[in-house]
């Protein structure tokens, strides 16, 4: 069970890196989304996949007969997803601003802050 998710997570990470490296800011954003997804899957898998029962208690706190899914990694994931969303949103805004500033999204051509050092 975890094996497949692990492979998927690795695959998502790999694709996201390929996208991030493409040198286009928008592709970077795509990569960022994929990377968060990949890592979230990794965390989920690391917290073990228990198919089925969600971590909800019965009335008056009765524990269900079967094991429930592990609640803690789910809480972590929730936090991580939300944080990832916040970061993504900022990155998106920054991308728009960068486009307005530079007129393109090629990161390698964004060199206002760091022009090549000329030889003295």
């Amino acid at each position, binding site marked *: 069970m*975890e*094996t*497949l*998710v692990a*492979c998927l997570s*690795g*695959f*998502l*990470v*790999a*694709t*996201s*890196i390929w996208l*991030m*490296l493409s*040198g286009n800011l*928008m592709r970077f954003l*795509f990569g960022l989304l*994929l990377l968060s997804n*990949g890592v*979230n*899957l990794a965390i*989920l*898998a*690391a917290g*073990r996949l228990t*198919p*089925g029962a*969600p*971590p909800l*208690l*019965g*009335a008056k706190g009765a524990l269900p007969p079967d094991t*429930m*899914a*592990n*609640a803690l990694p*789910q*809480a972590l*994931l929730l*936090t991580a*997803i*939300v*944080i*990832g969303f*916040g*970061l993504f*949103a900022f990155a998106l*805004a920054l991308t*728009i*601003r960068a*486009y307005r500033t530079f007129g393109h999204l090629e*990161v*390698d051509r964004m*060199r206002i802050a*760091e*022009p090549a*050092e000329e*030889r*003295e």
Partner: protein
Amino acid sequence: MADSTAPGISRPFGYTASILAALILVGIALTVPAVVDGRPVLFALDWAPSLGISLAFMVDGLSLIFGLLISGIGSLIFLYATGYMGNHPQFGRFVLFLFAFMVSMLGLVLARDLITLFLFWELTSITSYLLIGFDHDNPRARRNALQAMLVTAGGGLALLAGFILMGTAAGGYDLAEILTGPGLQDSSLYGPILVLVLLGAFTKSAQFPFHFWLPNAMAAPTPVSAYLHSATMVKAGVYLLARLHPALGGTMAWSVTLATAGAVTAVLSSVLAMRQSDLKQALAYTTLMALGTITMLLAGAHSYALTAAVTFLIVHSLYKASLFMVVGAVDHGTGTREVERLGGLGRAMPVTAAAAVLACLSMAGLPPMIGWIGKELIYAGAATMTGAPLVIAAAVTANALMFAVAGIIALRPFFGAPIATPHVPHEAPWQMLAGPTVLALGGLVVGVLAQPLLGSVVGSALTGSLLQDRAAGLHLWAGFNEAFVLSILTFAIGAMLYTMRDRFATLVDPVLRSMPSLDAGWDSFLDWFRDLAAWQTRVLQTGRLTGYMLAVFAVTALALGATILHGRPVIMPELPRSAFLWLTVGFTAAGAVVALNTHSRIAAIAGIGTVGIGVAVIFIFAGAPDVATTQLMVETLSAVMFAIAALRLPGLVERRSRQRQLAHGAVALAVGLCVTVMVLSVTASPLDRTITQYFEENSYVLAHGLNIVNVVLVDFRAFDTFGELIVVLLASFGAYAVLKRKGRAGA
């Protein structure tokens, strides 16, 4: 810091400093009886006890000599400076720096703790940096100040390492204990210690091959040259050598290194001194000669050599400070220091001339000046050293050249036919005359009364500080011995050199010119260094983000991959049978592939949406409804925001070359593979569910909630959620600012 622009208004600073220095002189002098009695004065404060470092001082014979010279000459220099540059708008600062320097120098020679000594050592470097660069509008001054700083500070750092090693070898930084202890010559760390300490001392005392900074340091105002570069700072190196002689001296390595460096410095610099037309430069090179001579003598182990070193040190301080001040007075009075443009000044500047002549007598080593005694002792000492013939030869050569230089300095500007100078020559004010005169006369007085005045102090330096049995006597007439013969020989050669100086020039100049210039070497070294730095920056900090990211990912892949090979974590792959899961994983991966390569923005967004949906389905599959809901909401909002943003953004174009694509793909795959291996390895062993169990058991009982995930979020781990809400909020703030703030210029 006082900054007075009105001329003359800061003069009181000069006088005050002079008086303070004189008071210090008196204070130090008060310890003479005790020191001579063999009872050094000690003083210590805790500084960093956990490191075994204290702020400790002592006055013993060696310190005493230096202390007296520093404060005494210092007092005169302040007076001199007041006359020389009291009108300078930054005179206040000047006095401050110079006084700070004097205090540092005193601290250096009085320190009893290695680290205390190092503290003051570095302080002298800083203050001298500020002083050399005093004429800060002049690029040359700035360049030379930097050179002096880097050379001496670089040596200082070596010295620090040496001191640390000494502390380790000797078990503490207390000099008194180190010196009276068994010595470090047999320590396993001796080699490194010696190399490092000598590096420090040689750079500070401008020994070959680090001598080049000193003549350049003459960019400083003359009072600084007179003080730092003749009498005090450059002596710090030889002071250190003398100070550590008991602990480090006496070995073959010590004597050979010191003798060679000293002899080469002495001979080379005295030849160079002959060839300077600028009086100040000539003096700078003679200073080097003196330092070389002292270093050479400190190579010896015999008390004669050491007595000679200590005595010559005093001698040199007296005449050289005096001569520097004279040159300053000449410069002040005529507007030039070029020996070719000076002549017959004796009439216009009689006091200066007298001081010059007197000081030069001492420099030339003529009786009854103290210089004579110094020279005699040098020869006597040289004779006791290993490799005596070579040492003596070097000493004679250097001294003969000194004789000739002394002749040039004493005779050419002041006698003969007057030559027109930029200003009409006039005598300097009294403040500027006091120094040279007192010091020159001092040379005469201590020459005549050498033994009564200096004998006991030098003796205590030898016995108390250098741990010799006794000191050689300081006598004008020590009998018709080897030294006397050598002196006569010296005079003869010197006189010949003086008269045949033009011939000498034609002989020497081609040789000198053909020698590689270390100063030019310094410049090319700095250029090389700057080129290296620029090259590194071009290679590393390219300003191209993809390069950065590639490096980061490659490092990640490398770090993880290498560790996988190193640690060999356990993995147990096990494929599931749920067809639904396979399908889900399949379309999720396929979604990623679409996003990977498409040129259509919407296709990419949709592909990523697919991935989001797939991941959400996996969350559902794993029994995580909260997470799945959040994931879907976030996916939706991300898509919404993308759709809004995409209107404001251009289309996608793939610009990578095939080669780059391969490299990027390889790195990406490597990282992905590592992640997979990590997850597999993590899931290979069972999970400790203690914490989850606690949550399950107490979620309702203690936290009154049935949804464990939510209880974890808002209660068990509310702090995480607190941070999380701040992140989201601030992300929106940042985005708001980045979108709404009007662009401003300014690259």
